[in-house]
Each structure stands twice: as structure tokens, then as C-alpha cells.
């Protein structure tokens, strides 16, 4: 298949400006500059492109929310890539950086933004340096800065490094962090696209790296070419980050609408040692787990079909759990992640993630009671739908979905009849052993390893 994003597969050294330009690079931008901003927005709308950062919101529609009469507007590129199991934006920026810059500039032109900020997670410091070089080269070549390609439109592009927090991938926390403030989400409305809600209070589009990297293709080849991939409601290709118990973990750019089975067995090489699959996390830690039934395995990976099986496509970071994985352990891993990453701004998430982790610890060390499973399920439900940002819902998902689909995996730990046996075989080991006993301040009980490992 021809790649829209991972063009390094077809064109060697596409990361270099001259190679990129010789292969239709910045042609989309050139074309856009010849159109009115509204025409650009309508083109993106027509392509049906949906946000690749998680929520799948139609990109063209998002751009059209930006008020026309405000003098100052911004684009923020979400390169925080912090969902567990997500590593697609990195590959795009590493191998095809100019396509991201071009896409961001087209977006900037469409909303008439003054500047683009690329917000990268702190660990991407090396990428940021590389992006800065690309930005410089593009500026020298006239693709950004003053009077882009001889037009009257001017726009600057900057990179900015975060300091290491999952929550800074959430768009309003990202904006706070970009402003130098504590990375905590903001109250909405006003939304980023509105006056008062964006960067420094100015209307701002926040888009994921992958989302924007699709845009040059849409402009240059036209929305219909884009729609040639994927489904009616989920057009285009998507990078699937496959990890977990598969033979060939990695990034796979494929048309939306392929099934889990195709993705896992045809592309990712199946499960090591021919083991069976127990469950699939389609969107890192934050999307609900689904059991690997035939129905699930044959479900097309689209926004709409994932909804039907009670989960989300999200960022499409597919984590495969084979039948050796202890689901209660996996739930505990995810609970620890969200406890560690909750920003603490709102009560249910701050307290709920802490509490769930405590009780889950008790359960998987064999000290739990049957009622403890009901307790965490109830606590997770109490977090759902009442938090300030979606992280609260994300944190509830792994608990609710694992207990729903794999109740026996928890029962083994708490049912007095099964417990003895379970404890003997499956008491998880602790790495380091430092976290034993009562948790003091900042003591993390990490390092749990899978049962039987």
C-alpha cells in the first residue's frame, strides 16, 4: 500500500527538505495559499479527516470554530504522545518532519494564525532539535516566516518541550503548560477555539501530529483521494501502534476499517509461541479493554465500529494481551499509571485513582475481600462522567471494563475458596521490594510483574 504518512517507505530520505520538495513537498501549502482560508477549511471538511489524538473530532469542523474577527490566533500541535503504547507521532516527526510542518502551516493559514507551537513531550528533546533544524531550513526556503512563498500571509513556527506529564497531552493542560503554567486542564467553556479559551486567551486550534500530517495530502491530492482509504465515517489511513504479546510490535499505517485479526495476525505476526489472545486494549491504557472473541477480532477498526463493541479507537495504540496475562495485574498496572498521572485538580480523579490503587494492591496481594472488587467497581463508576477532564473517565475504564469482561480473574484473588491456591501460585513478585509495608509519602508500589512470569 502507498503510505500517506510513513512516506519514508516509498521515498528514501524524505526527511530532507530537497527530497521532500521533489516529492510534492509543500505543494499542498502552495495550493492552499492560492485558495481562500474558507476553501481550505471546506476541503479538509470534505475529506472527512478526524482527529488522530484520541477523540476523533472532525478536523475541518474544529478549524471552522475559530472566530474570523479575532486578530490573534494560534495553532498548537499536540506532540505530547503520552498514551501508553502510542509511538506513532514520533515516527512521523523523525522520518517525515516537513509533512507535519506543512500540515501545521496549512492549518495556520486556514484559520489565519500568527504562529504555530509544536508542543513535544520532554523526552523528545532530540526530536525537537531536529524539528528546529527543519523549521530553519523551511524558513530559509520561504515556506514559513514573513510572506510565505511570496504571499501576504506570514506565520512563525516554534517548538516547545514539556516536562513530563501525561496530562499535558490533554489540550487545555497543554495550553497551560505552553504558557509556562502548571499543567492542569482548564474549565470549558471557553473552549480553545473560543476567545478566552486558547493559548494566552486567543482562539487556538489544537491538533495531533498525525492529524496535521494528513493535511498536505488532502490539499494536494484532493479530499476524494483521501477518501479512497478507509470507510465513509472513518476515511483515510491510520497508524496503528501495535504492542504487547505480538511477534512483530511496531507502527503500521493501514486504511481504517481493517480488522483486529488482520492487524494482529497479518501485519504484526500473530502471538508468540502460538498462544491465544485474552484481551485487547485498542487505545492504550485509556480505552476500555475488549475480550478477544471472534466477534471482536473481526470488528473493523473504525471510530464507529469500536463504539459498537463498547470501546474506542482513540489513538489506535493496540496492546495485545495473550492468555498468559493476569488481567487483575494488568488492571493494577493501569491503575498505578493513572494514579501517577492524575493531575489532582479535581476531586473524583485525584482521590479515586489513589483509592482504587490501594484496594487493587490489597486484592492482588491476596489480602482483599470479595467486597473489594465491588468497591473498586463502584468507586470507578463514581468517577465516571463527573470529572473536569477525560482523564478521570480514562482512569475508570480499565477497572470497569476488566471487571466486566474478566470477573473471574479478580474472583481468584478474593474468593476464600480459590484464594489459597491462587496466592500460592500467583502472588506477584516485587521488584526491589522497597515498597513493602505502609506506603509513606511518595512511595510507589511499582514493579509488579505478571503472574507466573
Amino acid at each position, binding site marked *: 500500500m502507498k503510505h500517506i504518512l510513513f512516506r519514508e517507505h516509498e521515498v528514501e530520505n524524505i526527511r530532507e527538505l530537497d527530497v521532500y520538495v521533489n516529492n510534492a513537498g509543500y505543494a499542498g501549502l502552495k495550493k492552499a495559499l492560492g485558495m481562500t482560508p474558507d476553501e481550505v477549511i471546506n476541503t479538509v471538511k470534505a475529506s472527512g479527516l478526524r482527529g488522530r489524538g484520541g477523540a476523533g473530532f472532525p478536523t475541518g469542523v474544529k478549524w471552522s470554530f475559530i472566530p474570523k474577527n479575532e486578530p490573534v490566533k494560534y495553532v498548537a500541535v499536540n506532540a505530547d504522545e503520552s498514551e501508553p503504547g502510542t509511538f506513532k507521532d514520533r515516527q512521523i516527526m523523525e522520518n517525515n518532519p516537513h509533512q507535519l510542518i506543512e500540515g501545521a502551516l496549512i492549518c495556520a493559514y486556514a484559520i489565519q494564525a500568527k504562529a504555530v507551537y509544536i508542543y513535544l513531550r520532554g523526552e523528545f528533546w532530540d526530536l525537537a532539535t531536529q524539528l528546529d533544524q527543519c523549521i530553519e531550513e523551511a524558513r530559509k526556503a520561504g515556506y514559513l516566516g514573513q510572506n510565505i512563498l511570496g504571499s501576504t500571509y506570514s506565520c512563525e513556527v516554534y517548538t516547545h518541550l514539556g516536562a513530563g*506529564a501525561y*496530562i499535558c497531552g490533554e489540550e487545555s493542560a497543554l495550553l497551560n503548560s505552553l504558557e509556562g503554567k*502548571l*499543567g*492542569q486542564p482548564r*474549565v470549558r467553556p471557553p473552549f480553545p477555539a473560543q476567545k478566552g479559551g486558547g493559548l494566552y486567551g486567543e482562539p487556538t486550534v489544537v491538533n495531533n501530529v498525525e492529524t496535521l500530517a494528513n493535511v498536505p495530502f488532502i490539499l494536494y491530492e484532493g479530499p476524494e483521494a483521501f477518501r479512497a482509504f478507509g470507510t465513509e465515517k472513518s476515511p483515510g489511513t491510520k497508524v496503528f501502534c501495535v504492542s504487547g504479546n505480538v511477534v512483530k510490535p511496531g507502527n503500521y499505517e493501514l486504511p481504517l476499517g481493517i480488522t483486529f485479526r488482520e492487524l494482529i495476525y497479518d501485519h504484526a505476526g500473530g502471538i508468540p509461541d502460538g498462544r491465544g489472545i485474552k484481551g485487547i486494549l485498542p487505545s492504550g491504557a485509556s480505552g476500555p479493554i475488549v475480550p478477544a472473541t471472534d466477534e471482536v477480532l473481526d470488528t473493523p477498526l473504525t471510530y464507529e465500529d469500536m463504539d459498537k463493541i463498547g470501546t474506542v479507537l482513540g489513538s489506535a495504540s493496540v496492546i495485545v494481551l495473550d492468555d498468559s496475562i493476569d488481567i487483575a495485574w494488568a488492571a493494577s498496572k493501569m491503575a498505578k499509571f493513572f*494514579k*501517577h*498521572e*492524575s*493531575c*489532582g*485538580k*479535581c*476531586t*473524583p480523579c*485525584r*482521590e*479515586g*485513582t*489513589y*483509592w482504587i490503587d*490501594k*484496594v487493587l494492591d490489597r486484592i492482588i496481594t491476596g489480602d482483599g475481600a470479595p467486597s473489594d472488587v465491588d*468497591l473498586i467497581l463502584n468507586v470507578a463508576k*463514581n468517577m465516571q*462522567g*463527573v*470529572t*473536569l477532564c477525560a482523564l478521570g473517565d480514562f482512569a475508570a475504564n480499565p477497572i470497569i471494563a476488566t471487571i466486566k469482561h474478566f470477573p473471574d480473574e479478580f474472583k481468584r484473588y478474593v474468593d476464600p475458596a480459590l484464594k489459597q491456591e491462587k496466592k500460592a501460585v500467583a502472588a506477584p513478585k516485587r521488584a526491589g521490594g522497597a515498597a513493602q509495608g*505502609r*506506603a*509513606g*509519602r*511518595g512511595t510507589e508500589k511499582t514493579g509488579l510483574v505478571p503472574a507466573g512470569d
Partner: protein
Amino acid sequence: MVKIYIDDREYDVPAGMNLVDAAKWHADNDIPVFCYHPKMEPVGMCRMCLVQQGAIEKDRATGEVVLDEHGQPKVRWMPKLQTACTQRVTDGMVIRTNTAEVDQARQNVIEFLLTSHPLDCPICDKGGECPLQNLTMEHGPGMSRMQFQDKQHLDKHVPLGDLIYLDEERCIQCARCVRFQDELVGDDVLAFHERGRRLQIITNSNPGFDTYFSGNTTDICPVGALTTADFRFGARPWELTEVPSIDPFDAAGSNISLSIRLDRDFGGKAMIKRVMPRQNESVNEIWISDKARFGHHFTRSENRAQSPMIRNANGQLMQTTWEEALKSVASILKAAGKDVAAIAGSQMSNEDLWALREVMSAVGSTRLGAWPITHAGADLVAQVGVGVGSNLGDLGKGDAVLIIASDLEEEVPIWRLRLKLAKERGVFLAVANARHTRMEDFATACLRYDYGMAAHFLSNLRAENPDLAQQLAQANNLIILTGAEGLSLDGSRALMQAAANFLIETGHVGKPNNGLLSTFPGPNGMGQYYMGFTPENTQDIMINPPKVLIVAQADLYHDDPSASQWVHEVETVINLTLFADETLSHEAHTILPIQSFAERDGTFTNGERRVQRFYTAQGPIADALPAWQVLSRLGEKLGRGKAKLSAATVMADIAKNVPAFAGVTYKEISNVKRQFPDVGGRDLYYGGTAYQNRGGLGVQLKTTAESGEAINTAPVELVNAPRSQAGQMLIVPTTVLYNRERTFLPSALMHPRVMMPYAEINSADAAKLGIKSGDVVEIVADTMRVRVKAHVNGGAPEGSIVLPRHLTTEAVPMTMTLGRVSKVD
């Protein structure tokens, strides 16, 4: 107005009002909140205020309300509960606060909060007035599903600076404290550190929590996480009785509440345990400065004068009875004929001052001096001060304020806070001074002139700063707020006249939110004027000292380096004082111990001419009496009729004799009305623990401009700044809030915050004189000689020394003078 529906009842509320506020004010529906505060922007953090929200459906084409099959308006409900605090009311908004779902959501949030809360209410200062406690009783689950050993344990005594302690376990991360400092005060000294359940409040300033308003955070903290070093573990809220009072330190006249208890530490008498804000939306809203909150210790100073004393033939002060003392004073006054004068300080109440004036009338003297003699022009404030109904909180877009010759943060911190907020609402705020002051950080425009030239600057405004002049002249409402920094008393008068002229000429007098304000020291600068006491009279007294001088609540020697010279020429000094240790006591023939504002009742007239009442709170100190009572009894002995029996009857006399006070009664001063936001009621979670106003909102006296009389401008008598000769510099005394005045020094907890004596020197001057920052320098000016540390950090313009008053034990001049500076080796 828009129509909204709360629990199926219809209400008309102003469009755009915050939903929590609207429900409370218009529907008497208390939506529980922790993080929301009516004075701050909503943040949606605690999630306690969840409600069911919908909107009445309207036909898109016709705009008609869509009806359901029962003929009722159709409501489109949102799928999830919404936080009420982040909503503004719109027409057709429908809210339910009483459904099972809402109840459950509230219970869940309480349960979540309590999982991390230590539940040590029995030893918590907030217990008894705690929003979390109250809301737990009202909405909580009643039992805990959290295992006790799962709770995290954190530091319970973290000092955030010298005044406020943080209990990390109790903090519920509502950010009220952080937002108060950041949004309202503009001293961004608190922050969150870390994230998740590890999120904690920290201070990022040095010294910690560096602001003049820190105590207010303890009022709005919805739990016992923030406590004051002054009060913590001092008493339980239910043991306290609240007595309305007035901040005795500055011209704002902040309304305060004295929390008292019969206390063994004070001989079983009623004792002030803490000072709290009392809501007066026109004066201080629900905020007070830390000086007002922590400065009450002087009322119980061990140096308080205990009994009347008379100097015997051997020159020794001997204790005596009131009767003997007053008889003796009466005979001294009679013997002196008319050669008597009085100097009264600005902590004297209106009633005290009137009674003193009566004594002076009895002996036929009109020599009534006001102390200290820094600010002139109170008469102009009486003429063209801000109109009745003024409220700095009402100023907004299109209005302007000019602050000139004042370091407002140090002089009247509450005005500084409220004007900072006014600026943010769109007021054009100009700050003019010879040096940088904190207020400039919040100003729209900053102007400079040379020290001594404030009046020149304002007189020539139209010619030399036409843009600024126009901005001010064209403002819908204009207030000019003056200080007296860098001026002589004559210079201060010139500035006041120039300000009055500008206001008169531009039509900004005789109406609310227009006119003249000044930072008169103490709480009753305007009262001094209305009762006939002026600084000009004092100047005259200093030049021509009388045979007998009555000094009332004026620390002459600590305020005036020349006191030793002119007081010597007085034959007999009668000293009405709080403190036995004043230097003046060595000179005084008679010492009459009087009561502080805390021990008796009375009224002060603040800078906005608001007559406000304070009530008897604390138990008396030995034989001390209210000054009005002492003086009224003295008046009786001098034939002025029967002594008055209450402060209220003295006020009746004032109302009869002082035209501006006509009709003023204690009853009227004590009137209250419902104020928005509704703070201090049963739901402490809404506004915090500031008290409801039960003592009275006061009466604002009419200006002459409002009484219909024609007000004319008058010539400004410009005085030139003293010209320095070779080697001389301008010594500019300034005010700092935290100082070593006798009325502040006894608050020992403030000592770490009182600066060591210092003076600001310009770097060019310092280089010439071979002075470096930190060097000890000696400053000599006619009668003054002080040693202070030099600060060379851009705080003083070239040629001048900025020398704060009341940091040194020796007095610093009250107004600008010339002097010499040298390094001490």
C-alpha cells in the same frame, strides 16, 4: 433579566449571573461548593456543585417554546451532571438540585474528599466553622468505605512564612488560597507543587508567603488546612463571641470582628483571640490586611498605662485616683487661663475628640492640634471628597483614578487591593510619585516628578501631561487619591488644593465615586478635622508652645525628632495615653490612662468620611477609662455641664454641633442591609468565615459639594522643595506598613516581618559617598540623627534618601527635610 427554573420554580435573574450566586441570591438555594468563591473566577475543581442542567426547548424557526404532550415546556436535559459554578445563567435554563442523582453525586464527592482527609476535627481549628464538616453532615455518606490504614500521612505543621501554617493532610486542593493571592491580590506567592494526590500548596517567595493579605486565605480555606500563627490552637470557634469593630490602623476603616473569650491569659477577662473581617462591601468587602488581623496585641501590651499618675513636688510620678487626678488637672487648666493647647492623635474616636474640644472650649482655647502633621487638606476632603454612596468596587471601564505622592500598599493596603481590582475591571489607574512604588505594578500609567514637586506636577498637568490630563478629565468618574510623601505640610496642602481644583474644574465632585481621597494616617484623620483639630494648629503649637499642653494618644517623641526641643518649653504636660512607657511620660505632669479601641465603644470617620462604629470587646486594663469619659468628667469640673454617660450621648452632642454630622445617630450608623455576596451565613462554604455585618454599615457624611453649595477652586500656593546645598540631600520620610510604632510592636509574631532600619540611596549618590548596599550610614538632619543600613537598589531618585518612619527607635522627621549622609566605619 432572564427566566430560569430551579427545582421547578421560576425565577427572574440578571442575565450572565453565575448560577451558584443566582441560586443563592434569588432562590435561597444553597448549592454546595468548595472551590467556588463568589469573589473569584470559577475553576470547577472540587465537583461538589454538580446539578442536573437542561434548557427549555425552543423552535429554531419561530423561537416559540416547544411544549410536550402535557402542554408543559419541553426540557432538553444534558446527558451528564454539570458543575453549577462554571455556568452563567441564560434564558430558559433549567436546573434540578434535588434529584437522587444529584444527591448521590454530592455524596460521592464528599466520600472522595474524606478518603484523604485526616478526620481530626477534635483537634482542628476549623472544627465548628468548617465547610467540609458542615457539608459532610448535610450530604456525606455517613460512613467510610476507605480503610484507615490506606490514608496517606503528610506534614501537619508546614510554616508558609511566619504567619500562616499549612496542614498538608487537611488540604482539599481547592486552590482558593492560590487564586486569592494570584487573581485578587496580585502577590503570586502560593502555588501547587507536584500532581495527583501528591498535589500540595507551597510558597515560592522569600520570605515565605510574602504579602500583606495572607490571613484572608485562612478565612476562605474551606478546611483547617491554613491557620494563623496568631490564633491556631488558641480557642474553639464556639467559645468565641463576636464583637464588631473597626481596623484602628488606617484610613480605610476596614470593618473587623473581634473574636473574644473570657481567658485565663488575661485575668479571666474578655480577651481578643483573633481579628476577623466583617463584611462591608463598600469599605473592605470581606478582606483585611495582615496588620489589621495580627496587630491587636498592643491592646494588651504590658506597657499599658494602669492608673492616673501625678508628679509630686519631688518630681516623682505618683499613683492617684481619677477624682484626684481630674481635680488637679482642672485646677491646672483654670490657672493657665487661655494659655492651653491640645494635640490629639488619629486613633482618638470622634467622641474622644469632641470631649477634648469641650474641655478646650471651657478654658477658652481654640488651639486644637491634630497629630501627626504629615497630611494637610482634610478640609478639602470635607468639601470635595468622594460622594455619598461611593464604592471603589463600583469603579469600572471609563473611570479613572490618580494616585499621587503615596505608597498606597504601605499606607492603606485595602485601598491598594481594591484599586488593583478596579484597574482589572478597566479603570484607568495612574500612579505618580518620585520613585517606584508597588502600586505601579498594577497601574495603567506611571508618572515621575521630582520630590517636592507633586503639587507642581498636578497644577501643570494640562500643560505638561496633556494626554494624562485629558484621560482624567474625560473619565466618567474620577478619584484623586493623595499621599504626602516627599512633601512638607505646606506642600501637602498645595497638592490637595491642586487636586481639588482639578476635580472641580473637570466636574468630578459632589457625586458618588468622584472626588478626593487621602491617606491620612490612623483610622480617624477625617474625624480630627470635623472636630476642629488640624495639623496647622499643631504647627503653631510647636512654634509657640503653650503653658499647658494636653496630649491625647499622640506619641510625640517617637514621631518627631524635634519634640524634645519644643515640648521642653511647655510648663505642664497632661498626657492621655495608652502606654506608660512613652518618652513623654518623663515630661508629663499628669498621666491619664485611657482605653484602646478594643475596650470601649465609639466611632471613627474614615478617609471616605464614613462614620463607623466599634463596640466594646476586650476587658479593661486596670483603671484606664475611655478618653471621652475622662474628658467629659474634666469638662464637668470646668463647668461644661454634667459629664456624659455614654459615647452615644456624646455623638448626640456632635450631631447637634457639627453641621456635617447633623442627624447622625448610633442607631443609623448601626443599620445593616443584605449585601451581595451573602457571606458569613450558615453556609460558611460559600464565602468563608468573614463575618456578616451585624454592627452597622456606617453613615457616609455629605461633602459640601453635595449639599448644593457652590464650590470654587482656590489658588494653589506652591512651595518649592528645599534646595540642597553642597553635601546635603533630601531626606524623604516614608511609611512602611510593618514598623516599630508602639501600637504595632507588641505583636511579636510580626517581628520577623518588620524590616531592620534602612534607607534607600541612589546608586549615583552611593558611589559618590563611597556607600555600598548593606553599609551602616548615619543620617543627620537638624534635630535628627539615626543610623540605618543603606539599600542601594534603585529605590531612591538621585539626591534623595528614602527613610522609612518608625523603623528606628529614634524619630525620623514627619515631612521632607534636608540632611547629610555619611558612612559609619
